């Protein structure tokens, strides 16, 4: 019943990889969650009835940010290495990525320690506290999940189970890591620049 001609078999038939599509879809979904938290943060800027304000207690986490954003570079470099089959170089750069991510988490932990015990800012102190810890915490959780995945891959690499043929999957995982870094750019701008 169809009047549409059938595709001749000689033509190439290529479809995007399902891993990549799946990861991009996940990223779009997660962006939805982050967007709502960012909107709430922006909406509540300046609306706290009491308590410490961002100007009073927030220091710009420059070193943390540099570490996290550099980790995007190192992971990109490691992707290139595994594409060429240089597993040792891949492993080194991958481990460096993890180290930079861990530094970011430690830095966040220290920042929160100061805010809670020195400045008295907790999630229930005021609107700033609620929105700050929720947004930054949500991001940090995603970093931790990413680090767990990266560490798993590192273990596979160190035990010799990771092959050059896995480079596609590595790229998919790296997409997630780039997403986490991208979200940090937004969170950093909103919390430490716009909101202060």
């Amino acid at each position, binding site marked *: 019943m169809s009047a549409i001609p059938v595709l001749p078999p000689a033509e190439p038939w290529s479809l995007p990889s*399902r891993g990549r599509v*799946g990861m991009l879809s996940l990223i779009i979904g997660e962006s*939805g969650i982050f*967007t709502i938290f960012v909107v709430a943060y922006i909406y509540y800027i300046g609306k706290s009835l009491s308590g410490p304000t961002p100007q009073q207690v927030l220091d710009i986490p420059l070193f943390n940010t540099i570490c996290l954003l550099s980790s995007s570079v190192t992971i990109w470099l490691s992707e290139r290495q595994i594409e060429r089959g240089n597993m040792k170089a891949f492993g080194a750069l991958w481990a460096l990525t993890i180290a930079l991510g861990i530094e970011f988490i430690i830095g966040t932990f220290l920042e929160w320690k100061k805010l809670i015990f020195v400045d008295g800012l907790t999630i*229930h102190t005021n609107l700033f506290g609620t929105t700050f810890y929720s947004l930054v915490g949500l991001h940090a959780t995603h970093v931790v999940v990413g680090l767990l995945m990266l560490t798993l891959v590192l273990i596979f690499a160190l035990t010799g189970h990771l092959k050059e043929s896995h480079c596609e999957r590595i790229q998919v995982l790296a997409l997630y890591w780039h997403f986490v870094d991208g979200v940090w750019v937004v969170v950093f701008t909103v919390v430490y620049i716009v909101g202060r």
Partner: protein
Amino acid sequence: MADQTLPIAGSLDITPPRVKERATAVEWLHEWVITTDHKRLGILYIVYATFFLLVGGLEAMLIRIQLIKPDNHFLSPGAFDQMFTMHGTTMVFLMGMPLLFGFANYLVPLMIGARDMAFPRLNAFSFWLTAFGGLLLYYSFIGGYGLYGMGNAPDVAWFAYAPLTERAFSPGHSTDYWALALIVSGFGTLGTAINIIATVLSMRCRGMTLLRMPLFVWLLFVVSGMTLVTITPLTACQIMLVIDRYLGGHFFDTQAGGSATIWAHFFWIFGHPEVYVLVLPAFAIENEVIPVFSRKAIFGYPAMVAASVGIAFISMGVWAHHMFTIGMTSVGNTFFVLSTMLVGIPTGIKIFNWLATIWGGKVQFRPPMLFATAFLFQFLIAGLTGIMLAVAPWDWQLHNSYFLIAHFHYVLVGAIVMAFFAGFYYWYPKIIGRMLDETLAKWHFWLFVIGFHITFDTMHFVGLLGMPRQIYTYEADRGWGTLNTVVSIGGFIQAIAVLIFAYNLIHSYFRGRIAGNDPWGGWTLEWSRPSPPPD
């Protein structure tokens, strides 16, 4: 045993003949629990949704018994509040969503010539997450303490407005069950949406370009894309609510400077696209059923694709038409009036295209087509009452009245459930291998349509007479008594019809006429496979 692998001309069936021993009960159960096969998971979703259709229907019946006359004492206020909250939550999250994902799971791979979904294990995981979410939600009836002696089921309305849901005003656990159960099942939904997108983009068989896909696949692809940015705002604001309730946060705590309206915005940013997520699969079913039973190709395939995509995008920008009474500025209200009216245009175009498909065809009124035709009239009316609600000043009267309930039940029941019944009658032969009984189908159809109109046509009028929603009783001197009695009677008639349907599903499983590959003369790929398709 009937050999169901009759090949049709040109198809190559390479399934080796197997002699299957009868599995023990434990083996059978085990197979279903561990399955990652899209067909099995599709059936699991559909059975799950049908079960909750009956449960949600029971809740509706209890509501209608309570409201059959003024000052009735059948349900206490607390119990009534739980009933309408659970009815709405169940029907949307445990019936509508699983049903559409069930049909998608079963049919999308078949229709694009793929072996299974892109991520079969994620598929299984997503189903069980959704199922667990439903279990958690219903556990609320028996878990925890209850202020009114009926457990702690959610009782804050399905949209759970703040600050009623804050600890100060809802000290029990009812809100917690609502938020947590839906967060869990929301992740399941997200997983399935990702799966469908990846399947459609990456698993089409050779030659199946995007513009050759059946419209059913297109619509479920669009729905999955929408789900990514629709469910996630709900998950986000529910996480915020849990933070408020358990960690002392102030997201919606008006006493600390928080905003109640921001909950409404976040919820409806989810809530409005959600109803399009629910209705687009109904369109998808119409797109398959109407051409086959009119013996004519769908009129305007590219326009239908464009209209679907258009609806998806515009529907993201209309949410505040649920909030015309909340006190937005006149400019804000006007914007949402415009966007809401605009989304009606591609929707109307679809109705015209279906009309044009029927026009000049040879219509066979078999059960799927009966329901598909009723859909057309009922969806038309639903759309028109939607336009009435889009007129903001009129909405200031109609909002939160029974007119609103009549409108959205016209969409959800008169259109969506109707289309799903059509889908059931259409694809049951493919999935089970047997036809559903046609006499029972006609009883189901006519009783349901009559009951539906008795209930929901009348309901418009009781709303126009000033009756608000979500009230456990009403004053005798308002003049709403007789109309409410009529509404309730129609509800009982619909209940009987649905029970006939449920009986038909079970009866035909054992006694239905063998269907063969293509009992309806369909043209999409699933009809080239045996019924049921081999694993």
